[in-house]
């Protein structure tokens, strides 16, 4: 008896799984997990072959994290079996998972900045091996050897704060290899990388599977699945939709499996017809949190009716730029003009009132007061105006109906509508609420920072449409994103920041990922890498 893995076909019966078990590094069979009020996983089956890269694809809230949490021992499944190397196991906690050779690289790295690579890697397993005398030298040797073997190119003695994000990720991978993990779970590993770093990661993953490791890749980026993965299991609303051979499935087909309907990747938009300059930034310099110039002499113009995208790796001056324009951060020198008027001395509120809308990078830190209701959050910038308050007294019914309008037109889903506490909403719905609030204010300049961060394909499509609609109403949009695809698809012009400096501005229709990638790495147009 044999089973072929062609598009969407399940392994048909329990019996066959028994026979086939030997080929699998990990099997999760019929997993069910219920949280109060939600079935997060409903009869999910995932089978990881030895030596393959297996993508786990699903929208936000589809149940990917829960499923991996169960495999890593963070939760216990209500029903179903887990087998590792054909043997049924109970994974009561992450330590058990580690002992079984399962390791996880979390989306946000868990590294101590002031420690060296070696110190970070041995953290947590140091004492048990060497008593109370810490022997970093032998550990460091072993790390160097592992690094060579898998082509990771990591210096064991470098401090974390001195190495790039891409390198930090490799440290996380090394950490698992050091602990003899055979099954590696990577959670959204490419979110923080440049296109070139993503390619290097791909090469590393290939090295790993050649050494007989097995990899589960959690992602919602279809392009990367196509590039890296051998097979892909798609889950939707807690249920397995199917497992496909990646080579035999198109991106569109996988997206349809994930979302449950057809998705358009190409953002539909007319060519821009830009008008007068709305935002003029003139050789702006801004200090960052470390009190050195995070933005250095940047000049940029955003006109009405166009979307200017800012591309760059995280931490290259994007936050400083946005915070200087919105008034959250002091400028060192240079000018900021909005519709010809100098705004660099105005308060945050005055800038809001002069026509700046801001979708902030971090909706939890800046965008929402999580303990306020949705209604209260929807008036965060306008509560002091008629009709929301008069003479200092809030008009709750006006606030509620305003909030309900935004909730309705931006499809913000929540338990109790406007009265829901913002914290109780899913990330996607929180983001839609913030975006609704900012666009509803009809600002002349909309600054959208990572507006689709962590959202699923369906929501991304919707938010992009709204941004373009805003442009088509003759407004200016400044889009800052770490997703190169987003910048390329949505923007009309693209400015690239590297190390606080403007590397160049290019027309979106005349550039490509490669050129932008080089610019993001600091190579100016015309120079060679």
């Amino acid at each position: 008896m044999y089973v072929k893995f062609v598009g969407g076909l399940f392994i048909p019966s329990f019996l066959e799984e028994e026979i086939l078990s030997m080929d699998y590094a990990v099997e999760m069979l019929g997993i069910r997990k219920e949280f109060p009020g939600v079935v997060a996983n409903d009869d999910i089956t995932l089978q990881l072959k030895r030596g393959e890269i297996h993508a786990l694809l699903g929208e936000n809230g589809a149940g990917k994290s829960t499923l991996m949490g169960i495999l890593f021992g963070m939760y216990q499944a209500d029903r179903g079996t887990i087998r590792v190397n054909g043997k049924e196991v109970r994974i009561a906690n992450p330590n058990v998972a580690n002992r079984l050779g399962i390791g996880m690289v979390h989306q946000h790295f868990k590294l101590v900045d002031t420690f060296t690579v070696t110190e970070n890697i041995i953290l947590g397993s140091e004492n048990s091996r060497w008593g109370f005398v810490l022997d970093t030298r032998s550990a460091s040797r072993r790390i160097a050897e592992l690094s060579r073997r898998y082509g990771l190119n990591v210096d064991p003695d470098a401090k974390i704060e001195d190495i790039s994000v891409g390198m930090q990720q490799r440290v996380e991978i090394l950490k698992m290899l050091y602990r003899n993990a055979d099954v590696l779970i990577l959670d959204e590993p490419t979110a923080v990388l440049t296109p070139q770093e993503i390619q290097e990661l791909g090469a590393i993953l290939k090295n790993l599977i050649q050494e007989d490791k097995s990899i589960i890749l959690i992602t919602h980026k279809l392009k990367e699945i196509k590039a890296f993965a051998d097979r892909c299991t798609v889950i939707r609303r807690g249920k397995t939709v199917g497992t496909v051979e990646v080579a035999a499935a198109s991106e569109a087909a996988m997206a349809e499996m994930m979302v449950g309907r057809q998705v358009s990747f190409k953002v539909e938009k007319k060519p821009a017809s830009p008008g007068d300059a709305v935002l003029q930034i003139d050789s702006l310099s801004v200090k960052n949190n470390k009190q050195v110039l995070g933005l250095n002499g940047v000049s940029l113009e955003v006109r009405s009716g166009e979307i200017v995208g800012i591309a760059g790796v995280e931490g290259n001056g994007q936050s400083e730029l946005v915070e200087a324009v919105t008034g959250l951060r002091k400028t060192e020198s240079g000018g900021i003009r909005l519709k010809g008027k100098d705004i660099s001395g105005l308060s945050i509120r005055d800038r809001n009132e002069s026509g700046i809308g801001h979708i902030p990078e971090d909706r939890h830190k800046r965008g929402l007061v999580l303990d306020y209701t949705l209604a209260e959050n929807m008036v965060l910038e306008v509560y002091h105006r008629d009709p929301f308050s008069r003479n200092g007294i809030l008009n709750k019914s006006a606030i509620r109906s305003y909030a309900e309008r935004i909730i309705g037109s931006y499809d913000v889903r929540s338990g109790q509508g406007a009265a829901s506490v913002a914290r109780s909403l899913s990330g996607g719905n929180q983001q839609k609420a913030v975006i609704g609030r900012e666009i509803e204010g009809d600002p002349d300049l909309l600054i959208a920072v990572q507006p689709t961060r962590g959202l699923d394909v369906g929501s991304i499509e919707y938010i992009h449409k709204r941004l373009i609609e805003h442009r088509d109403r003759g407004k200016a949009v400044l889009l800052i994103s770490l997703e190169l695809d987003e910048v390329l698809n949505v923007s009309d012009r693209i400015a690239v920041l590297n190390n606080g400096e403007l590397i160049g501005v290019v027309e979106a229709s005349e550039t490509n990922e490669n050129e932008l990638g080089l610019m993001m790495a600091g190579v100016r147009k015309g120079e060679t890498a």
Partner: protein
Amino acid sequence: MRNTIVSLLAVVFGLLAGAILMAVTGHNPIEGYTYLMQGGLKNTERLGNTLATATPLIFTGLSVAFAFRTGLFNIGAAGQMLIGGLCATAIGLTFDWPRTVLLAAMVLAGFIGGAVWAFLPGLLKAKYNVHEVVSTIMLNWIAFWTVNYAVPAYFKAESLETESRILPEAATLRVPGLTEMFDGSYINLGIFLGLIAVIVMAFLIDRTTLGYELKAVGFNRHAAEYGGIAVNRSIVVSMLISGGLAGLGGMVQYTGNAANIQIGILPSQGFDGIAVALLGANSPVGVLLAAIFFGLLYSGRGFMNAMTEVPPEIADSIIAIIIYFAATSILIERLVRRFKGRLPLNRSGTAPQQGKGE
């Protein structure tokens, strides 16, 4: 709803622990509690005294609760009380105005005195990020020594070095009508001021743009800043109001419950305000109820002591235990959740509803 359950459980646990304490020390808990309750409620005079004892606690409780609601920990209510009380007493002893004018001026002086005392920590916090716990608690002692100096120097009583002169009747909050109604209790107009303060604070916190701003700063100052709220100004305003409430607490204590101000005492009501705020879950009505409960314990304590062998320290221990349970309400909340059969989930535990990538 959950807050109410937690507060009630804190009270129940505190009383249970007190009962165990009494039993262990060889007393009858039921008898002890019976006398404790009787001491606070038995007749109209005792009821009046309970309410009067509760009055300063209402103000200090509101003071601390207001600060908590706006993200600040005002631990300096005691010092603010002293200065508020001193200012009100000074007005009462100095001027010979018609009673309504005089009392209004004293209320104002009490509020301003406390507010000024809290303004400094607010300013330090806003400008230099000095933590208000440190600066308010240090100002407690500055207030203490200020009173120690000012009272003997300017308002000394004829015979006693340690007290100010007794306020003239027109300059106190006592009114004959109330005293008679409660059979000679020392209840006074302060309780009505307290009720007004509860209503004003509820309105301010819940219905005004000022309350909206202050709460937003308290919950998330980054988001408040993003929304255009002047965060530093809010911190100062919030401390002003919180201090003013504590100052009023001093005013009702020294010109209502007492008729003069004494030196050498840092009023315990200032610190009890923290417990009142915690037990009242920082809501104005909760604070009112918690203050009355504390008033009951404090005023029944003496009677219990007189009628049984239970020492007053046991009553103080019970109060301390209740404070402890109220302060560790998170533990009680967890217990409540477990009772409901829900296992506590960490944040990623709700992953199915929550967005990834935060």
